[in-house]
């Protein structure tokens, strides 16, 4: 069949098609920026979307929840201790008769604040440190990495406990204790990304145009490092929440009568045999938070770097 059809072909059949050059160069479809593209991919990930909504819901409840009934987080009522359901105490009361609904949302808020604060400190120290280390390279990089290795060698739990004994156990102190070694991981990731970006041809092109160091770092390298930073943050926050809960559980959490999820779980643990509902509520909120943050983190990682999935 092939041979018979080739005989029918004539040179006239192979004239170039008259086409407009501009037509060929035209781009179809709408303009899509990087972040629009990320949002599109993130949105199509059901799990990540649910996680984000849950985080938002818990965040809103942490603000609104304590205001929804008339009790405050520290108000004690010895006539109504350890009630499962007691009138307008929606989730019951603890051993001092404090309203659990108010305390759980208040505690969730404190936990979230500590986690975000810890992530912010990581960001403020880790990102510039990693940028400078990676960008300068050579001796500077060498020394900065040795310092990081020393910090990495210190067991962070011991460091945290010592710091919390020494400092007043407030929100800021706990966040600081967590980021005193936490920023190291961020700095390492940023350094690695900067090292990778430094030899990309678009950076070389900017250098050959005479771009200053500041311009190279801020306009060319940092925007390309940003996605790695965001993903790291999304995994730092649940880790910080978890660590805060752990510190609260071993009695190094925030001072009573303030509460965090860890402190509440610790309180509930004391009453576990008699009133198991008291541990259930804060534990459920903690699990949901961790779960949601991990879902969002995974979703963001896939959305920011689709190549990673393959």
């Amino acid at each position, binding site marked *: 069949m092939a041979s018979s059809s080739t005989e029918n072909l004539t040179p006239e059949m192979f004239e170039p098609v008259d086409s407009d050059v501009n037509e060929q160069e035209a781009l179809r479809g709408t303009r899509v920026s990087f972040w629009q593209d990320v949002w599109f991919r993130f949105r199509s990930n059901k799990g990540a979307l649910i996680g984000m909504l849950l985080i938002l819901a818990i965040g809103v409840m942490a603000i609104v929840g304590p205001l929804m009934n008339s009790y405050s987080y520290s108000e004690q009522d010895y006539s109504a201790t350890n009630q499962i359901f007691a009138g307008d105490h929606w989730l019951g009361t603890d051993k001092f008769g404090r309203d659990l609904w108010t305390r759980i949302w208040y505690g969730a808020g404190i936990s979230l604040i500590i986690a975000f604060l810890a992530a912010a400190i990581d960001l403020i120290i880790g990102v510039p440190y990693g940028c400078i280390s990676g960008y300068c390279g050579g001796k500077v990089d060498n020394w900065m990495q040795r310092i990081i290795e020393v910090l990495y060698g210190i067991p962070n739990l011991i460091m945290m406990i010592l710091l919390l004994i020494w400092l007043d156990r407030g929100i800021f102190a706990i966040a600081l204790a967590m980021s005193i070694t936490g920023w190291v991981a961020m700095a390492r990731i940023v350094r690695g990304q900067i090292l990778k970006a430094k030899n990309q041809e678009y950076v070389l092109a900017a250098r050959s145009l005479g771009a200053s160091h500041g311009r190279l770092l801020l*306009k060319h390298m940092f925007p390309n490092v940003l996605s790695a930073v965001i993903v790291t943050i999304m995994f730092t926050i649940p880790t910080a929440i978890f660590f805060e809960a752990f510190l609260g559980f071993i009695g190094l959490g925030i001072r009573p009568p303030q509460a965090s999820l860890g402190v509440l779980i610790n309180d509930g643990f004391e009453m576990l045999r008699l009133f198991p509902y008291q541990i259930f509520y804060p534990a459920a909120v903690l699990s949901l938070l961790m779960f949601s943050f991990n879902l969002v983190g995974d979703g963001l990682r896939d959305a920011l770097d689709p190549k990673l999935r393959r």
Partner: protein
Amino acid sequence: MSVAEPKVEKILELDQVKKHFTMGRGQVVQAVDNISFHVYRGETLGLVGESGCGKSTVGRTIIRLYEATDGEIKFKGQSTRDLKGEKLKQFNREMQMIFQDPYASLNPRMTVGDIIAEGLDIHKMAKGQERREKVIDLLKTVGLNEEHADRFPHEFSGGQRQRIGIARALAVDPDFIIADEPISALDVSIQAQVVNLMKKLQREKGLTYLFIAHDLSMVKYISDRIGVMYLGNLVELAESQELYDNPLHPYTEALLSAVPIPDPDSKESGERIILKGDVPSPIDPPSGCRFRTRCPKAMDVCAQEAPKWREVRPLHWVSCHLYQEESLKKEEENKAE
């Protein structure tokens, strides 16, 4: 491409330029070693050689992305080593580079308009409406149009991206452009489009090119003169027709024999010279002539001393003992012993 045009001004001169990279543990990669050549204003000098022979390093050293270990590079008669301040800014405007990988050479987070205007911004050459007009002008110069300015690089094809890279280089009105394998990452059908654009721009703007490539037929098409590199050394440099007709260096001969001739009936396609062995490591290059380990015509003298870089015919430079009388004499003595 006529031979021996009266080319007066040397826009770029390299004298015994070396670029060595320290790899730690005392290992030194001699990526570029003792290279001397010059580029005349308005010409295209092609630089060919296989992967890893130091072509790109030469280009990057010239534009100061790397600092030369030794030797002198003069641009417009002035040494580029200690440029500072305003002089450096001027140098950055006058010399530009087109990169190899059209997917890596454009910042994915910037719009095409901002990428092209980068040079304008850095050198504060235009602002606001004037900047926009210049960008559109440049886009049209490279065959793209106005609406492309607000798009992001990932929306373009390889050929379009490479043209955006050319527009970025042109934004600062350079005289001299180093094209570092600008077409090797493109489809063959697109290669001609980009090369023809470069030729057109050269005619219109009087540009000088250093064209780095490994595609010999494309280099011959665009270049006035061609230099051949092997393992960090320049082994031969001549007018392109002269180089193709009378290759002197054994490496050039082997390289040219590998160029396919697109004519099945051609009787010309002579013997293909197959070199034995692999390219030695630039960390520990062979003594004397670096090509001697694979050279079919190697002599004893080749291992003893490095051949001199000399003009054996008018405008035809070669670095090989076969074309140096004293070397041949020495070889006779070696044999006699």
